[in-house]
């Protein structure tokens, strides 16, 4: 558990518009770590998280994920990188033209798992987030909090080695938020590396693990672990 699974080296990100969202970021995450990424609105949390699955590409610097350099990764390699990651997005990106079940099975279809195996794993994931009884429903019929949990189910169904979540508790009240964080912690206990962006102060106060603080695109690393 002391091997860096994610490492940023002098990473900067300047958006085409001219904003430098991240400036000279340096930080590493060890395999099996649980890291909270905090910072004000616009600090660059989402930008940092998007660099890991190569949704955004760094302007300079190198990023290593699982020992592989993202910066030099070709378009063909990106899908295979993403298959090892579980992603929960700030804007949930659910598909409202299909059922809860069909939303969660998507990652299984993409990697071409067998039907039986897929079904089994989708049910397991939905059970984990407490939505198994709504698998036939349309995501429209879910409340904001339920949709949030659906996103988590989709992110974990493929048993990723790294779980990345952007504000997963934003539309949840404190009790639900604690439950969700407990869930992430349980994934972490079975060896999944977890990286979560949040601005929830309570969450930060309660959490024992490491907190990385972003401020105007710079890291203020204070290892609490």
């Amino acid at each position: 558990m002391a091997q860096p699974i994610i490492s940023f080296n002098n990473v900067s990100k300047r958006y085409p518009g001219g904003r430098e969202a991240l400036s000279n970021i340096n930080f590493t995450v060890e395999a099996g770590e649980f890291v909270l990424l905090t910072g004000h609105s616009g600090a660059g949390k989402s930008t940092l998280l998007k660099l890991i699955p190569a949704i955004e590409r760094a302007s300079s610097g190198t990023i290593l994920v699982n020992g592989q350099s993202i910066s030099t990764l070709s378009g063909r390699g990106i899908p295979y990188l993403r298959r090892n990651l579980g992603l929960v997005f700030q804007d949930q990106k659910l598909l409202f033209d299909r059922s809860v079940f069909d939303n969660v099975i998507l990652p299984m279809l993409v990697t071409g798992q067998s039907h039986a195996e897929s079904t089994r794993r989708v049910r397991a994931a939905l059970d984990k987030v407490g939505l198994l009884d709504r698998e036939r429903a349309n995501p429209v019929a879910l409340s904001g909090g339920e949709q949030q949990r659906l996103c988590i189910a989709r992110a974990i169904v493929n048993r990723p080695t790294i779980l990345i979540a952007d504000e997963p508790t934003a539309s949840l009240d404190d009790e639900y938020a604690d439950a969700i964080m407990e869930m992430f912690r349980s994934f972490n206990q079975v060896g999944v590396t977890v990286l979560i962006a949040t601005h929830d102060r309570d969450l930060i106060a309660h959490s024992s693990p490491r907190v990385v603080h972003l401020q105007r695109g710079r890291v203020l690393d204070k290892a609490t672990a």
Partner: protein
Amino acid sequence: MNALIRHHLHSLRQSGVRFASAPFAALANMVVIGVVLALPLGMYLLVSNVQSLASSIPTEPQISVFLTPGAAKTDVAALENRLRAVEHVRSVRFVSREAALASLKRSPGMADVISTLRENPLPDAYVVTLGEGSAAAAERLESELKGVPGIAHVQVDSAWVRRIDALLSLGRSAVILLSALLSLALVAVTFNTIRLQILTQREEIEVSKLIGATDAYVRRPFFYWGGLLGASGGLCALLLVFLAQVLLNRNLSEFGNLYGVELRLQFLPVADAALFLAFAALLGWVGTYLSVSRHLSKIQPR
């Protein structure tokens, strides 16, 4: 590998689902492509039929040499020898005035008129057939023979053949032009249909890419859809043309009877029909390819 096969099947099933979810729209698309493709296909059929009909007409120029009535037997014999000696001449056939009348009598509608004639008005004649492509020689021979004693009139029959040939080649170039134009139109239809399909499924594509779908995975269902669209449109075109042919044949045979000719359009041979279908599918595929190349890469997750 197993996963790949599974995904191909999945893509095919998706096409089925998509069709079922909007059968009217899909059928409409098919019919339109069918109509567009039926146009050059039907024209091709027509031209190739006229061509095979025309090929049963001798393409070698023929010269009919009508003799003056009551010409001397020796003159006639000398003439025949002279004709046989001419360069390019393939055959010389004597048609007696009795044979000419008898053949005229066999034409429908003529028998009655001819029976009113007091005597045979037709002259004896030689029919001279020249080798293929010797139209110039035929015209030379015509002017040579014009003054010869015992010959009343010389008629070259090659003009008609040449006219039909010219018409046919015009038809052929029209078919090629039309095919090219409408193939382009078909590619454009598929291009547009797939473009809107992609836009419609923008979110699904975006999420799929985020989840680790390869470009090939995202593209595949569109290719299936485009290819199927083209092929089913092609099938529709074959059906339309076949129907038109059946209807036309019914009228043509009646019409042909009037002239004592067998007029029947032949349908495409099965192999050609299959080739046509494959071509239609290919066009659909090309439209999809262009559309996918242009529009799919624009959809990037953010």
